[in-house]
């Protein structure tokens, strides 16, 4: 019992970070009034960059940072289209979702002659924390080890939730960001630079999505494959809508998805239920939870609307 619980918690802690990083990114973008369905593509380019840079430099933290920057680059592209050029945000995001994975796999083929990057050594992956602190062996030892000996990205993501929450609700930047997503014209009148705020938000969302992608290829797995990220960006967006556009809400939603994945790992091993049906659980659960508890989520008023300064 304790063993299974430990394994489930471990699985949650392993599978949540990619979603949660991307969801935090999505929070920034959506709250500033820019829909970003390009999260998926930004995660993919981050996933590739993280794995490739870690392979060459053997420095996981530097690779992790590069992954974020790669995501941010595509975030800047999305920001340019949507903020400066007033492009339809959904169309631009769709374009990113074709472009970024295309670039990732193209570069993989050019650098490694294969659509997959080579497997990383354990030392090149995200470091695991507190490895020596807990001795496995006993039931409780294993349990604690499962819970606390995790990839550093896992710890980082939960710290990030707090940081993002703080930025959103306790700093001037965050309040302005949210105001820009609600009523850009009023903000403009008060002297807030709407364009700059939205640029910042979308680029940050790309950065965090890139980190999320790197969690897949540098923690969960040890290499980039074209299907590394597949779908997780969209789930992250779902988590944000589900979490009512708040970082803490998105965290609970991501944990729910992570838990379902955890259950899949545990239940999948004993073949009682079809693994395909178990995989379906998170999505069905989301729909049911939405019907029962959440209902209408309040979208930031200016979400999806390009802002044009009047002359």
């Amino acid at each position, binding site marked *: 019992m304790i063993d299974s619980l430990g394994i489930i918690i471990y699985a949650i802690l392993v599978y949540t970070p990619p979603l949660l990083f991307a969801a935090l990114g999505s929070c920034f973008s959506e709250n500033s009034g820019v829909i970003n369905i390009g999260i998926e593509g930004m995660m993919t380019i981050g996933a590739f960059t993280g794995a490739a840079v870690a392979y060459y430099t053997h420095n996981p933290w530097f690779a992790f940072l590069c992954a974020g920057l790669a995501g941010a680059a595509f975030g800047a592209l999305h920001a340019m*289209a949507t903020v400066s050029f007033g492009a*339809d945000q959904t169309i631009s995001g769709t374009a990113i979702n074709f472009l970024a994975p*295309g670039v990732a796999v193209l570069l993989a083929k*050019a650098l490694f002659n294969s659509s997959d990057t080579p497997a990383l050594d354990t030392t090149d992956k995200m470091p695991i924390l507190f490895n020596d602190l807990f001795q496995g062996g006993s039931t409780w030892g294993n349990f604690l080890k499962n819970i606390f000996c995790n990839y550093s990205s896992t710890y980082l993501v939960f710290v990030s939730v707090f940081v993002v929450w703080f930025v959103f609700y306790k700093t001037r930047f965050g309040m302005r960001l949210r105001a820009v997503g609600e009523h850009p014209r009023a903000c403009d009148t008060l002297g807030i630079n709407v364009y700059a705020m939205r640029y910042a938000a979308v680029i940050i969302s790309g950065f965090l999505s890139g980190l999320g992608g790197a969690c897949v290829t540098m923690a969960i797995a040890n290499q980039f494959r074209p299907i590394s990220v597949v779908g997780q960006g969209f789930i992250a967006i779902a988590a944000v809508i589900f979490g009512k556009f708040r970082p803490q809400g998105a965290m609970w939603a991501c944990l729910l998805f992570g838990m379902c994945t955890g259950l899949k790992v545990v239940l999948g091993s004993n073949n009682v239920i079809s693994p395909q*049906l178990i995989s379906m659980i998170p*999505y069905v659960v989301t*729909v049911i939870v939405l019907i029962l508890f959440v209902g209408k989520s309040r979208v930031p008023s200016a979400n999806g609307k390009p802002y044009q300064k009047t002359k």
Partner: protein
Amino acid sequence: MNKINKFLQSRAFLTLIAILAGFIVGVIFLLLVGISPVTAYAKLFDSVFSRPKNLAYCVVYATPLIFTGLSVAFSFRTGVFNIGAEGQFVVGALAACSVGILVDVPAIIHIPLCFLAAAAAGALWGVIVGFLKVKWGINEVLSMIMFNWIAFYLSNFCVDEIEAIHTDGTADATKNVLDSARILLPESIRSFLAPTSNYGIFLAIAAVIIVYIIIEKTTLGYQLKAVGFNKSAAEYGGIHVNKAILTAIGISGLLSGIGGAVHVLGMGQRISVFAAQEGFGFEGISVALIGASSPVGVLFSGLFYGAMKYGGSRLNLIQAPSEIVNIIMGTIVFFIAISHVFQIVIRRRGGK
């Protein structure tokens, strides 16, 4: 001069610019990875146009995309963003495949039955989402993403675990659909076209015409568009908004579902366990955008996408990465997204 100016400001011209931009960016990336753009584009062009057989393949590749493109375009016109075309396509294909395997009747009944099942499945998949939206106000983009994945795993479950349709062989796939359900062209014609050439393209053209008529010429189309433009105004005008939303999503889903049927009864023949989403629905979004959400535009952009997809798949033969096609298509969509900027530039030039 006036005529030229008018052309320069038209959507068609902007689309051409976007396509040109796509190929230019493609050149940059090909150079970046050390492949001669001339060789790669020659291969791409050659794979599409060199023989009637290749063109026939392009049409086969394009047919399902025309359906999902129409589906998404229809949703855009009616104010819904059907990101769920992927799931609707999958359940449509699954329904058509199941009926194609399990029901043994003459072709004249069998084929319509398969299409009916696919259309119903696709429409249902859309309407459920519409129902969640109008009944509980649940964001349709969110629930469509969920239903894409539910369809994905539902299909995998059925293919994997339902004995009646699972293949007798070792593959992770269904049996082949019965010959009476297949929509291939007669053998004599196929022998000099592609082996998988099918009637689907004629259905697609028919669908383009029907969708055009619904959107532009009927009261229903007018109502759906009105709701898409402005819900409150439409409601004041006496249009039943909730019913309109359900109808719009239903028709959109139906089109994607039929796309799934065309794919499985024409080219696919059976369904395999998916490792990743196949992307017909997502590619449909691009097709709709490149076709400016007009039915006729979708027909052409669908054919273009089909050609790029087929041509791209042949690039591997010269060791060029087929991902270049995704980059080109992504760039095209990106430039279409920002195309009105060019429009403004051209207009200013014209004004001077």
